[in-house]
């Protein structure tokens, strides 16, 4: 107890906790990178819980087409496959950007982030084209409960990707202006987590909404 109070009060200036840190949780506060990353991980999980509510409402409303078109008549699986490829590759290049950042290689970092950005924009363009196509065919979100749930779920993911692209551009600018400072690297860690989590949610969307929907 006294050890904890002593080291947390001064933020452990001499890394003394390494000497005492024989058991988990008795070394004072964790490094900032772990606290930040863990906090963001909790946020991501709550975001996934929010998505699970949209998935639940989609699953419940899936058959309520109100005499309108069903998923099997609307979905274009080639388009979905292209979207999936763009998002998966962007997740990979985002990983490359994390490695480049840890290697403190600004040129590779900016290149990988730029590729990630382009792939993310391609995904968004395809999704917007699909949405406008659906609305033009009279299958907009107001047509049936099924389409309301569909647009809410997939659109919410699209909004997350849009926000992610804005964040990505901010991170490119921050590294350009401030270099690989510890606080910038923590933000990068959070951004990479966010981008990879979006890809996980997309896996659920293309499996459950598009592939199951086009079969049923």
């Amino acid at each position, binding site marked *: 107890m006294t050890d904890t109070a002593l080291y947390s009060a001064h933020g452990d200036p001499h890394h003394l906790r390494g000497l005492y840190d024989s058991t988990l949780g008795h070394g004072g506060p964790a490094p900032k990178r772990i606290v930040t990353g863990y906090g963001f991980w*909790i946020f991501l999980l709550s975001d996934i*819980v929010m998505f*699970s509510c949209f*998935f639940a409402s989609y699953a419940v409303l899936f058959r309520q087409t109100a005499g309108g078109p069903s998923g099997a008549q609307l979905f274009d699986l080639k388009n979905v496959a292209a979207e999936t490829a763009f998002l998966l590759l962007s997740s990979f290049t985002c990983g490359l950007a994390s*490695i480049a950042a840890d290697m403190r290689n600004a040129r590779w970092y900016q290149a990988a982030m730029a590729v990630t950005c382009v792939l993310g924009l391609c995904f968004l363009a395809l999704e917007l084209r699909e949405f406008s196509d659906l609305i033009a065919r009279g299958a907009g979100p107001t047509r049936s409960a099924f389409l309301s749930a569909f647009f809410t779920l997939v659109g919410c993911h699209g909004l997350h990707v849009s926000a992610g692209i804005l964040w990505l551009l901010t991170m490119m600018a921050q590294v350009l202006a401030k270099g690989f400072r*510890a606080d910038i690297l923590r933000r990068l860690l959070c951004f990479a987590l966010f981008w990879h989590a979006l890809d996980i949610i997309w*896996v659920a969307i293309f499996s*459950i909404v598009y592939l*199951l929907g086009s*079969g049923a």
Partner: protein
Amino acid sequence: MSEQQTYEFRDPHDLAPGDEEEVRLGQRLLGYLIGLGLSILLTATSFFVAGTDLVWQPSIPVALTVLAIAQMGVHLVFFLHITTGPDNTNNVMALAFGLLIVFLVIGGSIWIMSHLNQNMMPMDQIMRMQ
């Protein structure tokens, strides 16, 4: 304590989600490449299974669900670096709690709503009563 020091100090018992134990460039690159390869394989299988007549049709929803869960696992391990290592305990516990809530929400909604659907009077009879 300067910011730089905070970052350089790696806790031996704890790892931020997304951080890797591995620091060598080649090994890390290989990890992402394996993740990408497995994801492409699983995605391609999913799309193939959904569009084919070769598979027994009633098994397709189960197959797609299993493939999706497998791919999410691949993403978690190779991209988010959530592993079963002792330094990852906190991250895995948070994930387990999140998954519990997800299954309660989705499973509970489908369960309750399907029962309601079965017990509800058909729509035309409701209309006739009014």
